[in-house]
């Protein structure tokens, strides 16, 4: 079943067309990959889906509802969230506070419930804290609970950003280069983690990556971008053999170094 659909999506910055007439769909429960050389427009597409950039032309549908004129927080509320290429944690807060902050959607008490410490506040707050604690355990971050986010090693910061996103119980999770800066061993762990998230949280994943072994290893469907346009789309076996993709991106050797 289709979860996300981009229709003739176009984004221009002044004279530069970063994304041009891109069409693709993401199926529910799938892991999809978005690849392409630097500057191809991958991150821009994430920024369009999450409402951070306004769409110049075209449309984005999520569960058949148009979302391209909605505000970022509304889109997040509908079940789409993401991580950033350049990690954006709440740097001065602890690991626990990072996740707890993102749990707010699972409660609906008002300011006066909080100010008067009413029963509703106390009950919901207890549930939020339990949920945040469970999430940290699942993501194997419990040991770092009270550490300030900024002080974590790089790989754990990436994992924390994913944990924070999962606190929304998203239907669609967008990961922007989650393996950037990771060694092969960490990358393998990340691949397992992404599969586990899909299975255990039941969410659909769209991932941007330059690590080809990760993309080819976990994706059901891959979309290749080049200069803002879609170059090819299909399962890993097909993409690996596509002459256009090999020429534009994968190179003669078949695998890029990045």
């Amino acid at each position, binding site marked *: 079943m289709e979860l996300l659909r981009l229709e003739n999506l176009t984004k221009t910055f002044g004279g530069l067309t970063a994304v041009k007439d891109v069409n693709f769909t993401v199926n529910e429960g799938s892991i999809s990959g978005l690849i392409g050389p630097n500057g191809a427009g991958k991150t821009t597409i994430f920024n369009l889906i999450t409402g*951070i950039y306004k769409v110049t032309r075209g449309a984005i549908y999520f569960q058949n509802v148009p979302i391209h004129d909605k505000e970022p927080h509304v889109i997040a509320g509908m079940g789409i969230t*993401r991580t950033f290429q350049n990690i954006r*944690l709440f740097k001065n807060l602890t690991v626990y*506070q990072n996740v707890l902050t993102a749990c707010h*959607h699972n*409660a609906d008490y008002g*300011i006066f419930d909080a100010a*008067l*410490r009413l029963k509703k506040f106390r009950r919901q707050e207890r549930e939020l804290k339990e949920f945040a604690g469970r999430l940290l355990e699942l993501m194997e971050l419990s040991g770092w609970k009270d550490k300030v986010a900024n002080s974590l090693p790089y790989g754990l910061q990436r994992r924390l950003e994913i944990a924070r996103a999962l606190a929304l119980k998203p239907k669609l999770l967008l990961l922007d280069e989650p393996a950037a800066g990771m060694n092969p061993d960490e990358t393998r762990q990340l691949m397992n983690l992404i599969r586990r998230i899909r299975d255990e949280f039941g969410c659909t994943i769209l991932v941007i990556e330059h690590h080809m072994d990760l993309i080819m290893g976990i994706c059901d469907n891959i979309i290749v971008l080049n200069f803002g346009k879609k170059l090819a789309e299909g399962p890993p076996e097909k993409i690996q053999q596509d002459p256009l993709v090999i020429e534009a991106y994968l190179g003669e050797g078949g695998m890029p170094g990045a």
Partner: protein
Amino acid sequence: MNWFYIEGVLILAGINIIAVLGLSLLTGFTGLFSFGHAGFMAIGAYSAVYFGERMGLPFAVSVVAGGLVAGLVSLFIGRLTLKLKGDYFCIATLGFGEAIRLVLDNVQVFGGARGWPGIPLKVDLVTVTIFNIVGILFLMFLINSRHGRSMIAVREEELAAKVIGIDTYRYKVISLFISAVYAGIAGGLLGYYLTFLQPKLFGLQKSTEYTIMVIFGGIGSISGSVLAAFILTVLPEMLRSFAVWRFVIYGAAVIFIMIARPQGLMGGKEITLKGIAGILGIPGRNRKTARSGEV
């Protein structure tokens, strides 16, 4: 030094604490700088005295209603300016504060530049203390709720706050509203303590003083704000014998602290019972002082 004088200083400190608590929510927890809070204070002060003396409302009701008027005005200002980037918001508040002062200077119903004399004295140490306790508790409970955490998220990383579903604009408006109510209430108390009001009480210098207090106490710390407002109100009084030099000494003291402790007195931490126990060497399960957001 007699008790009457000491009590006066303590009352002023208490009034400043209320205004600084409000500004602390906006600047310390939400990350928005304002140089116009004296304007909200003025609105609260004149409204409270108007409600109390012209309309005959009881004292406490007038003061709270004055705070709400300041809050309402802030909603209007917020709508106009909170979509702007942080630095523009800051400049807009500066303009707002000065505009309010100039308007009051020229509106004769409130006494114009000569001011509004003859307000009955209705504020004592007990009143101020009650307002302080309620003000501190409200802020503490707010900060430790999902609403407070969302404000802190706006301060920490606005884009990330948005993609986890936080309506950052709405939380900025709420934060400004609450901080304006605090400022307005502080203004009303000031009027009923000084027994007169004058527009020049609420100039840019006052707004700046409050911002200094928030930063001096440490961004994102309620106890830091309280401590800073207290110290920076009492210090100039203790230095009175130095005549004009006291402001030089005051300034030097502020600069010294900011160099020695750029994160402010409390540096985003809070004074907690556990923390005090820890310093005194009393063993406990968890001796760390909590960071902002976990009092």
